[in-house]
């Protein structure tokens, strides 16, 4: 078990390293001169001499690997560079935006869990009954509806027409419900289906038959046997949906003018603020890798077959 974790951790490190390399390479090959970008973003049109000087200062004339090395060292030191558009250290910008996006993502996750679990389980238990068809249709709608469209429609209905929620994010609860719902609805559709499938698969396995043959109540079978067994798959899918969720924040934040990482990244893209862009990608992949790693570890610990591997009686 220990060996497993150290191996896994090593893998995580390699992957993060690779991710950083990829990110840097992408910026490196992308068109546009960062030095110039820095001036242009302030609507200053620099002269060639000034540019050359700045390039030299920024180390842009160094060979690729040297640049990458420096960048990586700075990154490890926590220096993520300087954001042109925000005219400040990237780390400071991230510090401001991260909590907002996390707030949004957490509320969306809450919705996701609160809705998809009961729906998925119900749908599986009542397979091919009316209620199953209804839930499946709803989830089909969920996965087919474009989030950006849905968001706008919700905005119109609930903000303009009903005045239930607010458009600005400062208002705590009233501000976060709509964006979080927009973010969650497609995921709820997806996840409900996946939970249903996972549970159905478990229901068809032998041990369920075994439990029935032993005369155990159906509700007990579902909650004591099927759910714990399908949890592994469900948790893994959950980790995957976090990736989708993080991606969704960009669109949702744009629609709802949510001052988080999503709007920040769109702004960074428009202004070619590469340091910010790099930091964002690194940060997101770090979060994502850590979540996957945690989930996988939880799964490993949950599953006695893995946990007690080799301990035969």
């Amino acid at each position: 078990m220990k060996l497993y974790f150290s191996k896994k951790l090593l893998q995580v490190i390699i992957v993060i390293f690779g991710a950083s390399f990829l990110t840097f390479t992408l910026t490196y090959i992308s068109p546009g001169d960062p030095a110039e970008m820095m001036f242009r973003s302030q609507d200053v049109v620099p002269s060639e001499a000034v540019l050359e000087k700045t390039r030299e200062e920024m180390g842009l004339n160094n060979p690729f690997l040297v640049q990458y090395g420096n960048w990586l060292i700075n990154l490890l030191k926590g220096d993520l560079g300087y954001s042109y558009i925000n005219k400040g250290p990237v780390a400071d910008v991230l510090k401001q935006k991260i909590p907002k996006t996390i707030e949004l993502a957490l509320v969306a996750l809450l919705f996701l869990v609160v809705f998809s679990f009961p729906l998925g389980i119900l749908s599986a238990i009542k397979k091919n009954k009316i209620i199953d068809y209804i839930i499946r249709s709803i989830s089909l709608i969920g996965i087919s509806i474009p989030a950006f469209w849905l968001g706008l429609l919700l905005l119109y209905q609930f903000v303009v027409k009903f005045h239930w929620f607010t458009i600005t994010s400062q208002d705590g609860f009233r501000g976060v419900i709509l964006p979080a719902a927009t973010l969650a609805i497609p995921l709820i559709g997806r996840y409900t289906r996946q939970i249903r499938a996972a549970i159905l698969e478990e229901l068809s396995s032998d041990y369920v038959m075994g439990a029935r043959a032993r005369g155990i109540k159906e509700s007990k079978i579902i909650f004591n046997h099927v759910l714990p067994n399908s949890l592994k798959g469900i948790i893994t899918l959950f980790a995957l949906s976090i990736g989708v969720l993080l991606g969704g924040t960009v669109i949702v934040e744009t629609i709802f003018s949510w001052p988080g990482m999503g709007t920040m990244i769109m702004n960074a893209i428009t202004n070619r603020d590469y340091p910010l862009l790099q930091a964002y990608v690194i940060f997101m992949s770090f979060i994502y890798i850590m979540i996957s790693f945690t989930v996988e570890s939880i799964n490993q610990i949950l599953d006695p077959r893995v946990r007690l591997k080799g301990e035969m009686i």
Partner: protein
Amino acid sequence: NQNQPTDAGKTKTLNAATYWMSDDAEPTKGWNGWVVARFGAGENLVQLDENMRFKEVIAESWKQIDELTTVFTIREGIKFHNGNPVDAKACKESIERALEITDREDVKLPIDSITAEGQKLTIKTSQIFPTLINLLADPVYIIVDASADDGDNFAFQPICTGPFQITEYQPDVGLKLKKNENYWKCDVDVDTIDVKLIADTSARAMALQSGEVDFATALNRKDLGLFEGNEEYVVQRGPNLRVAFLAFNMKKPYMQNLEFRQALTYGIDKKTYAKELYDATMAKGPFNESLSFGYKGEDYYSYDPDKARELLDKVGFVDTDGDGIREMNGKNIVLQFATLSHFGRDAANTGVAMQSQYKEIGLGLEITQYENLSEIADSDKVDIIWDRWTSAPTADPQYLFETAYKTGSPANRGNYSNKEFDAVCEELKTTFGKGERDKLGIKGSEILMKDAGVVFLFYLEGSVVTRSNVEGIHRFVSDIYHIDERVKMK
């Protein structure tokens, strides 16, 4: 989050929406001063009022003593937000601070000396500088208490003299202001202002509708219809100082041909664009007709496809292969129309409209949205550039001429160059007297129009929408100011 009732003792909060915020509120940096000015936090010695006339603010009066020297009398009894008195010395320090910090070339003053005696501030320039007053009205020169600059928090809560004081500044969320109890001019009615950053235009309209804000500016033209005629809202709209124009890329050899440029101009139905696409006033020259230096005569080369065809035939660009597109040196003419994506849809829409109209005169057009100016500036890729500029933020023609059209100037994206026009710019540098300067402004405009190097499309419109419980908010033509001491809430 509705407004508090106006009963005595309760605070009156004005909820406002803004479409743009700078990273901080240090007025001397870039255009950051606009945010400080907009919500009544900072004041200058002199300012432009809603109708673009100079008004004395911190300076009670000013007087030009000779070509190089101007004397300002600082009003008695003005205090900074922190209670420090405002005298000539404080103003001197503030102006010097601005000169030191600002990185904007267009607001630099050629200062010889600034002297302060009591309430008397004397500014001596090192050369003849007719636009001194105009520049001093720029938010860069908002008078701040330079002695209070602790290098840290000052950028977010600058100490100025306005009717409101910034108490909280979050670049991506909004800002909060409170009433300045010691405001020099009058007692301020509103206690606090809560400004929310809502960058999306339609979202601002929705925020007004949902009651989250009482005041918003720069709404979508179409969305204004939602408020006009509705008793709950007051809408003020009208042209502002921004002008949208097309610059032909003079680097291209064929663009050097005046007749070709004229043909291109004849092919643009800007009257319709202005009316139908933008609900705006069609532009003739660079300056709005309401400005004293605005061109008021007939437009040159207004839409006439037949003339365009005739001219194109004349310069020899004809369609020989019958595909409906004229050729130049045997190749179909497909002009490249470029905009910057941050100009938004309006810019691209012009291209879309031109595309179908140019087709009728046998010209192809492709539209590309660029992210960066740099990609346009140095490339031969583009033929026509959509651009937008605030024409006279300081109520003077010189600024626009110098930045956008003078030979070699930094924002001259079409690489336009005309000796006659450059001469007008030079003359403006040394000419005093509003009348004279206005004439030069008109002269320059006419040169530009006649030469067809730049096609002025329309003047953008500004709009201000307030809930009917708010009074005393005016629409400033300059768009620099929104709220001042006159604001009141019922």
